Every structure is written in C-alpha cells, then in structure tokens.
C-alpha cells in the first residue's frame, strides 16, 4: 500500500488493511524501545497509542503529509517513549534512525487532555452496555439515529434519542465526579 492509500483507508471506516500495513513497522520500533530500557509490553502499548494519535491526526482537516508516513509514525513513537521516560525520571540517549523529531503540538498530544481521557475511559466502563452501544454506533460508526433505534429495538427514534441524551448526561455527570477541575 502507498502512503496515500493508507491515509485514505485510515480516514474511511475500513482501516483493517491499513492497520496491518502499519503494524509491519512495529518490530523496528520495538527494537528502539527495547534498546533504551523498555520492554515488549510498553512497546506494544505505546505503538497502539501512536496508531490512534496517527489516525486522529490524519483525520484532521488540515492534515498534510510532509514526510514518509512510517517516518511520521516513528516520530510519534519516539515522542511517546521519550515522554514515558521522562515520567520515569530517566533520559537515556535516543538515537532513532530515520525519524522525525515531533513536538507535542505537532502530534496533537496534550498531557492534561490525555489524563482526562483516561478518566473518561473508566467512565465509559461505568455506563450501561446499551449506552456504550449507542455511543459507539452513533459517534464511531456514524450511523443514523433511525438505524440505531431499529438495531437496538427502541420503540421509536425519539426514545432512542432520549436514551442517548440520558446516557450522555450520566456520563458527563460521572466524569464531573472524577474530574474536579472541569
């Protein structure tokens, strides 16, 4: 797959082939992380995070690819690993080949936001399965409320909408409890 094919796949709902292609970069990235004090688990964890940041980045309207996609992916991983090392108060030399040095802004990474989202992840595990399903179908799969009402056997579109509203209200309320500053 070419970089442009991967990017348009990442923008569409059919990401599997593109993700498989990107996953081929994992062994090389892993070697870099292992050689500076990391292990397999953290390498995979960071790599998965980097894929998500890449997908989010690619889907931004102002996204323009200025380097090879794999180079960009390396850059994100290097950033995340560096960030992790900083949290551990370690700073070994990182001599990654063929990588970009990216700043948090360039990646769209914001520590405070990431922390909030970790809390929200827990919140999403606290709402009901049905709520989760509605969220996923509506926000991720971008299905219409009419389809969702049918799929989840709501009596009407309106009752599905009301349910979605209640779910959102509940989730935000839970989030407020765990995020005192907002």
């Amino acid at each position, binding site marked *: 797959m070419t970089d442009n094919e991967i990017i348009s796949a990442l923008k569409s709902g059919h990401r599997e082939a593109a993700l498989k292609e990107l996953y081929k970069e994992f062994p090389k990235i892993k070697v870099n992380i292992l050689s500076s004090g990391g292990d397999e688990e953290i390498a995979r964890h960071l790599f998965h995070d980097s894929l*998500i940041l890449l997908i*989010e980045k690619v889907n931004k309207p102002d996204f323009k690819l200025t380097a090879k996609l794999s180079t960009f992916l390396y850059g994100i991983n290097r950033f995340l690993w560096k960030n992790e090392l900083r949290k551990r108060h370690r700073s070994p030399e990182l001599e990654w080949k063929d990588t970009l040095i990216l700043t948090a802004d360039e990646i769209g990474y914001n520590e405070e936001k990431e922390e909030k989202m970790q809390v929200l992840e827990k919140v999403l595990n606290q709402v009901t399965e049905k709520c989760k399903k509605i969220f996923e179908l509506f926000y991720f799969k971008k299905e219409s409320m009419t389809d969702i009402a049918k799929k989840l056997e709501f009596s009407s579109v309106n009752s599905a909408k009301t349910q979605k509203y209640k779910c959102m209200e509940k989730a935000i309320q839970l989030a407020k409890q765990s995020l005192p500053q907002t």
Partner: protein
Amino acid sequence: MYGESHTVSQTKFTTDMRSELETLEQIDQYLGGKMTAENAASFKAEIAADPKLQSLVKDQQLLIQTVNRQALMAEINSVAGLGAAGGAAGAAGWGIAQWAITALVVAVVGVGGYFIYDNYQSEDLPVDSSEEFLAENSVEEFASDTGDIISFAMEDGLDSELEEEVIDANVDHEVTDRSDGGNISVDKNIDRNDNVNTMVPFVTANDVNAVNNNEKDEKDLSQTPVHSVAKNRKATYPGGLLKMKEFFKKEMRYPRTPRDKGLAGTVKVNFLVTADGKIMELASNCFILKDAEGLKLSQFKYSSNGKSRRIFEDKAEAIFRKSSPWTPATNAEGNPTLSEQTWYVNFDLKGESSIYQLEEDVLHDDSKIMIERNQ
C-alpha cells in the same frame, strides 16, 4: 435551519429536559460538522458567550473522542491478534504494574552500567570483584536478591573514585565531616542511609569541581571512560568544552531571589541536539540546594524553596537554550544524528559558578535516586 439556532438561545435559560436534549443534538451536529456554515458560525458565537454551554461542548467532545478511541483500540487489538477485550481494560490498569516492572528494569540497567564503569575505574575494589557478577548472565536475578549489597558496592566505588579527586583539592576534612553528619542524621534504614551516602560524594565532587580550575576539569572529562559503545562522535558546543565554559561564564548572572536568600544549588540539565544542531526538549531538575556555607539544605528546607529551585532551573535552561546551535553528533557512518546531552550547572554564591559533565551511567543512577528522594 435558522429556527434551530433560535431554539438554542432559548435553552440557555431553561433547564427543561426537552430543550437540553436539543442542545445535545446541536452540539453533536456542530462537532460532527453537520451544521451549515451559517448555523455553525452562530452556534460558535453562542458557545463563546456562554461558559456553561462551552464546558458542555468540551465535555461532550472529549467523551466522543474517548468513545472513538476505545473503538479504534479494539480494532487495533484485533489486527494485532490480541482480541478486542484485552485492549481498553489492559490500557487502564497498565500504569501501576508497569511502574513495578520499570523500577526493576531501571535498577538492572543502572547496576549493569555501574559494573561496566567500575571495571574501567579500579582493579582493587573492596567488594567481591565485579567480574564475578559480570560473568553472571542473569543480572536480573541477582539484582532482586542482593539489592542491598549492590548499593553498598556502588557507594564504595564512588568513594574510592572520590578519594583521588579529594586529595588533589585538599578538602579532605570537609568531606569527611559532612558525610559523617549525613550518617548521624539519618537512621538505620538501609535504603535511606544509602541515598545519603551516594549523595554526599556527589555534592563533594561538585565542590571539587568548583574549586578546581578549568584545565583540571578538562582533563578529568577527557579521561572519563566512554563505555557506551562510542564509535560515534558526541554533539559539542562549537569549539568544544572550553568554549562552552566561556559561553557559560559570559551568560551567567546569579539569579537575584536565591542570592538574596543566600541559596546555592546544582541543576541537572538534559536536552537533545538535533541533526542540524538545534537544541530541543530542554528539561532540568535542581536536585541540590545549599546554604551560604555550602552545606546541603535539609529535606524540609529543600522542599519549601521550590521557587528558588525553579529559578535556578530556568536560568540553567536559558543558558543552554541560548547556546544553540551546536555541532551535532555523528553516527557510525559519520552522518549527523540526533543525540542527547546531560550537563550540571553549579550555582556558586562566591562567583565560581560552573558547568560540567560527569560519567553518564553512574550519574544517571545517582540523580534518579535523588530525584525520587526529593519529591
């Protein structure tokens, strides 16, 4: 469509659930880019004017992003062959377990580094010879079993290294006194005791550096064994270490707040030198504060002087930031490459402030201990 944005302006003033439901839908449309440009613009103005609506939009946006990430993570995990279930939950619980593992890894790396270093330094080590340990393949096992012994081994190593320097500088007494003091004030707890001991030689090495002239510094650094597979050239300030020291002297102004308080300190500065010589990702930690007599502040006083520490850190960072561009490091093929630098800035009240570098791995380990202790 115009009517819709009108409804929104009404919802601001009512807590009626029906209109809140409409607000929610509008936020969805707005965030999903499904509003006409005109409506989006007027909604945007509305958000800007209404803090409550603003925080609602933010919350909802973040929640939607989290929903999407979870779903994406499930996709990624299934591509990775990990099964969808493992993903999100694993990610959440990962942090703490990782810390434990990390601590072990860090310990092992540090110990490994030390023994290589030690091999260079002295043949007549007072503890069981390090070669014996090196012969062992599973460093990990030994690290967890005999952690205490290792710590002491390190301490001895540092002391013996120190002695040479101390004799040169004729500050033998001062050193001994201080390290005794440290031992008395800290109780039997082996771990803590340890920290104090590893710290004292460090502080002193520091003082020694301040007492010595530049030439001596130069010599020491050039003699430092480079064990980190160094076929590549490291990044340097244009003209080398002496020029960097000159640059530092020129830029150094003792910050006023700590001067007024009679505080001195040492800051560890870490940064990257890019392949085109730019300085990036500056990070620093003022890990030692000293009083006018040069005695290290107590833990309590150290903690309560956060402002001075930050001022020292800012000053140290500013000087290195200004020293850009550098001559980049080169890799094995001789091409410029990204590299990392660690420096120490010693703020001295008597006008002998200096910068220096020390043998890296041993140092990494020490400063790590100190950072953790000081927090």
